[in-house]
């Protein structure tokens, strides 16, 4: 199942590192959520965070964006240490964050939502290209953002960070609750983005969506990374993954 996408895996180590996390701890108030996460992603890689609900996957993404109560350790983005950086400066390193709840603003229409995040790099996907990629968004561009269907909202949430020129994407459960045909569309979009050289860290529950498109998988449990699986090891490690994910 992974044969189509493994050719690039073996060159991971020589790729330019876009994101390196070392010994990351994160806290919400008194609760200690992440217990020393280490991971690294190279340019153009698509990496997933797998695990059960509550394993700390979403918190990892939020900790990278400095959206948690407190964090310690090291997060290097594009060579810049960000552990003490103000939250609003992190996006400008080329980060695009798509939250689990999608975060479409109800007081803004579709086009306002799309145009909202400021550009963080100069070579973002143009609005024309976005409307070509997601024709539904063009048709409904003057509708209230939250009047869109779940799938359309997800496309809007994704399109909005593509327009900013972000080249490291943190995507949280983008297929959750969506119809198979839309999930398929999202898989195609992610492959297109990967082909453009974008780096993607994907939190995903839907393993069948993630497996064919990802280069590597990190498995999380109780705020730790417990396993790293390369795409070419998927078949031999299926049993192990099933145990961790409880599928």
């Amino acid at each position: 199942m992974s044969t189509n996408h493994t050719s690039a895996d073996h060159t991971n180590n020589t790729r330019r590192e876009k994101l390196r996390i070392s010994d990351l701890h994160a806290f919400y108030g008194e609760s200690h959520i992440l217990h020393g996460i280490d991971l690294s992603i190279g340019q153009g890689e698509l990496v997933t965070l797998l695990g059960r609900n509550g394993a700390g996957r979403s918190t990892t993404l939020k900790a990278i964006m400095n959206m948690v109560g407190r964090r310690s350790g090291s997060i290097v983005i594009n060579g810049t240490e960000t552990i003490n950086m103000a939250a609003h400066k992190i996006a400008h390193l080329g980060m695009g964050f798509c939250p689990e709840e999608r975060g479409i603003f109800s007081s803004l229409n579709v086009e306002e939502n799309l145009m909202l995040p400021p550009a963080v790099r100069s070579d973002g996907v143009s609005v024309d290209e976005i409307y070509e990629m997601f024709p539904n968004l063009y048709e409904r561009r003057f509708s209230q953002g939250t009047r869109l269907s779940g799938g359309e909202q997800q496309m809007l949430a994704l399109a909005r960070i593509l327009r900013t020129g972000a080249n490291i994407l943190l995507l949280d459960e983008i297929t959750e609750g969506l119809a198979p045909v839309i999930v398929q569309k999202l898989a195609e979009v992610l492959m297109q983005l990967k082909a453009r050289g974008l780096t993607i860290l994907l939190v995903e529950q839907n393993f069948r969506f993630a497996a064919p498109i990802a280069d590597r998988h990190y498995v999380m449990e109780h705020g730790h990374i417990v396993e790293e699986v390369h795409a070419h090891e998927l078949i031999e490690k299926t049993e192990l993954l099933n145990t961790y994910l409880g599928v």
Partner: protein
Amino acid sequence: MAEFLGINLFGLFGQLLVGLINGSFYALLSLGLAIIFGLLKIINFAQGAIYMLGAFLAYLALQYLGISYWAALIVVPLVVGLLGILMERFLIRPIANEDHLYSLLLTFGVALVLQGLFTHLFGSSGMSYPIPEAFSGGIKLPFMYLPNYRAWIVVASLVVCVGTWWMIEKTKLGAYLRAGTENPALMQAFGINVPLMVTLTFGFGVALAGFAGVMAAPVYSVSPDMGSNLLIVVFAIVVIGGMGSIGGAIITGLGMGIVEGLTKYFYPEASNTVIFLVMVIVLLIKPAGLFGKEA
């Protein structure tokens, strides 16, 4: 000509004008409250005291520095806005993560301090501010006499209110504000400096009250309690309009001024209570207010 179906048109239009002028001040003050509430989620009890401060600054600027009404109309809101920025940065922000009740009490305290300070310095009798020369006199309409300055109040407040509404609802800056009101954490993740936006928004909302104060100086007596009297009514209006709705604050402000004016003509005994009566009725029928979103 002055009588129609037994109604004294002079009296009616006179009261309507008074209502419209009061309504202009209600609209300016509740607009400022709505903007601040939207982003900071606190009710700024100091808004009335800041309105009073605006009127006093205009008065003092004219008395001691010879600063004209026109200059005051620009300078006073800027000064007041700057004070608002300092107040947000050094008083409100340190307790921003606590229960919003604390910031509410804080702004209430600021209001009392300001009001006490001005009572101590100037007494409570009230000062008068001359009507600017350009607006002395008035126009004689068929059914009423319209003093020029009063017409100016209505026009200027409408321009400021509609301009503010347009800026918030139709521009990119306004989109940031609306989005920041909904989900500040995500706006930060998009690279927007939300704390700075909060500070500037508070400054702007407060500056609106300062502007209203300058506008009010020539028509109302400039006294330390001018704000606290007005603020109670403005709170009722904010409740009627619905918290956080920008257009709602403006429309309800003007509308309630007119309702008050009409009541003064038809049943003067109820004119001081009519707004609170409307508030009770609105709360019973639509608890979120006329323009508010149901929670």
